[in-house]
Structures are given as structure tokens and as C-alpha cells.
């Protein structure tokens, strides 16, 4: 990798200030950043190490009952936090369905949210990629694209966001706290990510120097705690990125759905909140027929971006699976294979 300056930030303010200079990036767990630097895809001039900033590693309950998770909380610590497990179990399940135990020990909340796509043409310096440099073209478009996007893509870029964690966050309407050169602001997960446009690569709403300081899980999300699941389809039982995934959270009473939250992963350049499907479900009977309708609604606008039409059908099916699993109830104990399709009971199949 290219040589770079290394600077350890002592506070949020110094971090933001240092990172406001072009060419600077934050170093958190390093598991995505170093990977990309080794591939030569990212070549920052300066790394701002945010691992020693006091206070970013706390998990605390806010006055309004929301859960505030510091940006430097490691994925594994978050996943085993009792409050998270009790109140937002699908988030814990999604965290544990991602990467490996070693990576989760290093990976942080902020880093996970800000990780970049695994599109292999993005990683390959010999291929054309608009995300790496706008104007090069997109070699994935006519290449090996079986795992690429089916929603929200344009010919500029058909990559998907790889995070599992983000999927239930999108469903919950979680927010991030950002401190930047212009002060503090809050963004919903949905607003954090930007889809590709014509001639515009996908990305995030963060600008140079913007530091995510915390993630806020809204207190309203707790009402789904009894029926919340994350389901991830993959071609290896563990330690594999999602082909498609879904988070489903339900409130059911008298056989009817009172409230539903849904999001899909692995289908677009951002975690895909399925609001139309939620609308279909609200007030509907808690039945397979409703779930099917919801799945059709969620994928109504989907289109293959290449050799990946199967992902549309699989996305519907994973959504139905997540819904049925959620309806069956959050398991009393985290399944041994979190998020695995094998961790769904008979009633969910």
C-alpha cells in the first residue's frame, strides 16, 4: 500500500478537524479500509485513528428510551449486549450473521456502516469501475454479475451494499449521529446511503471530515422484540456475504399484523427498506398469503442488472422466510447459526 501519514485522534473535535483535509480517512477497526488499501483501491494520504477517542465505545439508554451505541463499539460487543439482545434481537442476529468472530471483534459500528461494496471489479485495478473513478465505465455490467443489484441500480453502477447489520437498522428506521466540520447532525440509515444515478456513483451522505459518533436505535423498535428475525441466504453456511437477506419485525394481535418493519439486504447499493411491503402487511392477516403479497410488493420495481434474475425470486423468498420466522417468534436464545436459513424452525418453512 501507499505510504500515508498516521495521526491518532484524542477527541471527536481533533478527529473531525484532521479529517477535513482532503485525502484523510478514519481508521476504526481497519478491516475494510486496510483490505481496500492492500488492493490499491483506496490510497489515502492520511489515516486518522479514532480508536482511542474517549466515549465512543459506550452503549447507553437515552432519556427517550432509545439505545445509543457509540461508533467505536465493536460488532461483537454490541451483539452480546444484554439490552440489544432483549430489545433489538434482529440487530444482534444480523451482526452475528456477518463476517467471522475475529472480524467482529475488530469491526466497529461506524466502520460496518461505512464499508464499501465487495464488487470484484471494484477491487480489481485492471477493470473499469465508475465507483473507483467516475467515467471509467462499469465492467460488472456485462461481466460476472450474478450477485449484483436488482433494485435501485443504474448502468453507472450495479453494486450492492454488503452489510448485514444495516438491514435491520434500515427496517427500524435507526439514525446515526454525525459530527462534521459544520457541526452535529442526525441522519436516518435510509438517508445515509445514496443510490447511483445516471453518471453518479452510489455512496453516502457523509462529506470529508464527517464522523459518525453514534448509532441510535429508536425506542419504538422495542415493540417488535418478540417477533424480529434476520435471515441471510448464502452459498456457504458461515463466513460468506449474503446473496440476499431480509430483516422482518412484526407486531401481531388476534391473527392480524398490527405493525411491520421490513428491509432487504444484498439487493441494492443500500439496505433496502421495503415500505410498500410494510403497507401491504399493516392490518393484514398474519398468513403466508399476506407475506407473499408483501414480497411481491417489495420486489415490484426490481429488474435484473445482468445475469441475476434469480435474485429477484430469492429476495421474495427470503423476505417470506423472514416474515414467517418473525411471526413464529424471536427464539429465546440466539440460534447457534445466527441468521442462517437453517436456523428457521418448521413453522417458518
Amino acid at each position, binding site marked *: 500500500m501507499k505510504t*500515508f501519514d*498516521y495521526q491518532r485522534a484524542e477527541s471527536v473535535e481533533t478527529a473531525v478537524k484532521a479529517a477535513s483535509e482532503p485525502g484523510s480517512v478514519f481508521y476504526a477497526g481497519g478491516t475494510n479500509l486496510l483490505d481496500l488499501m492492500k488492493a490499491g483501491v483506496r490510497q489515502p494520504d492520511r489515516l486518522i*485513528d479514532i480508536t482511542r477517542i474517549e466515549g465512543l465505545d459506550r452503549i447507553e439508554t437515552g432519556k427517550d428510551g432509545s439505545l445509543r451505541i457509540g461508533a467505536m463499539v465493536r460488532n461483537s460487543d454490541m451483539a452480546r449486549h444484554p439490552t440489544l439482545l432483549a430489545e433489538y434481537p434482529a440487530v444482534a442476529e444480523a451482526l452475528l450473521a456477518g463476517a*467471522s*468472530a*475475529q472480524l467482529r*471483534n*475488530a469491526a466497529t459500528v461506524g466502520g460496518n456502516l461505512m464499508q464499501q461494496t465487495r464488487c470484484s471489479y471494484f477491487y480489481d485495478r485492471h477493470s473499469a469501475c465508475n465507483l473507483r473513478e467516475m467515467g471509467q465505465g462499469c465492467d460488472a455490467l456485462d461481466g460476472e454479475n450474478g450477485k449484483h443489484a436488482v433494485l435501485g441500480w443504474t448502468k453507472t453502477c450495479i453494486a450492492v451494499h454488503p452489510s448485514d447489520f444495516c438491514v435491520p437498522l434500515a427496517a427500524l428506521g435507526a439514525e446515526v449521529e454525525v459530527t462534521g466540520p459544520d457541526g452535529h447532525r442526525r441522519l436516518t440509515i435510509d438517508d445515509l446511503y445514496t443510490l447511483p444515478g445516471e453518471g453518479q456513483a452510489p455512496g453516502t451522505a457523509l462529506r470529508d471530515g464527517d464522523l459518525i459518533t453514534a448509532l441510535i436505535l429508536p425506542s419504538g423498535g422495542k415493540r417488535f422484540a418478540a417477533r424480529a428475525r434476520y435471515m441471510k441466504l448464502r452459498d456457504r453456511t458461515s463466513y460468506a456475504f449474503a446473496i440476499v437477506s431480509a430483516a422482518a419485525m412484526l407486531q401481531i394481535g388476534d391473527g392480524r399484523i398490527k405493525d411491520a418493519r421490513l428491509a432487504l439486504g444484498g439487493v441494492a447499493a443500500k439496505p433496502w427498506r421495503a415500505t410498500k411491503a410494510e403497507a401491504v402487511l399493516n392490518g393484514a392477516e398474519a398468513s403466508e398469503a399476506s407475506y407473499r403479497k408483501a414480497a411481491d410488493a417489495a420486489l415490484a420495481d426490481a429488474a435484473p442488472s445482468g445475469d441475476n434474475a434469480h435474485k429477484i425470486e430469492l429476495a421474495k423468498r427470503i423476505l417470506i422466510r423472514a416474515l414467517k420466522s418473525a411471526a413464529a417468534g424471536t427464539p429465546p436464545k440466539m440460534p*447457534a447459526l445466527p441468521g442462517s436459513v437453517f436456523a428457521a424452525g418448521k413453522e417458518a418453512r
Partner: protein
Amino acid sequence: MALRISLKINGKMHELALEDARPTLLDVLRERIGLTGTKKGCDRGQCGACTVLVDGRRVNSCLSLAVSLEGADITTVEGLADGETLHPVQAAFIENDGFQCGYCTPGQIMSAVGFISERDGHATAEEIREGMSGNLCRCGAYAGIQDAVMDAQLRMSNEGKS
């Protein structure tokens, strides 16, 4: 301008001068300190061969910048045994034939040590399988690895270590 860092590795302090901030913990261990027990299988977080404990937690040393770890307490496979006495996980790997070529083994062993310490209470076989899935073994020594980890957690609770 050299960067100075100090790391405590297997109980011993190491002061290092790096020409720049690039070296990963893995390359520092292997190429600069000479602790070559920790292996490089992919250099990209995809295999687990480089697993070490940093402040007691298992991580992939190939994706950690050494400079960022200033002052950290690192344990590698070389630091696991107590003199001539093997750590229970090491002993269990030998007895259950938890390896063949041995190349993934330091990573498997460090990962198993981390895995056992992360939990309270015994893990089920399925939990071991999931918990050890961040360590690839191309030889396919998985049957022995699973048995070794199962055996090691028993040994450790018998010795009152867990």
C-alpha cells in the same frame, strides 16, 4: 522519520522503529520480530491463519495496523504454552489430530482460545462450528478441529480455567 511503537508480546515488551505506518501486526510479528508462528494465508481477513489475541480478544492480525496497537498486549501461538506445559487447547489439537499440514493451526488454536474465553459455559457442537468458521483449513482437518475444541473446553473447565 521513524515511528516508534511498543507492543507487549507474549509478556515481553518490544520497542520497534517503523519507517512508516504501513506494517500490519502480522508483518511486524513475522518479518520484524521473528515470531513466525503466526501465519499468513490470505493477508485480507479471509482465512483466519493470522489470528492472535489482542488484549485477550481474537483478531486477524493481517488487518490490524501495528501503530494503532501501541501499548497493546498481544498473545501469539508462541506465547501460549507455560514453559514445557502445553496450553489445553494445544494439547487437545495434538490428541484429536486437529491438523494435517499445520499451516492453519496457529490461527485455529488462537481462535479456539479466544472462542472459549468469549463464552461462559460450554459451547454446543453447533456453536463451535459457527464460532470456529472464521478459520479456513484447506487440508479439511475440520473433524479433528471440532473434536479438539470440544475436548479443550472440557479440559479447561476441569482445570478451572474457564
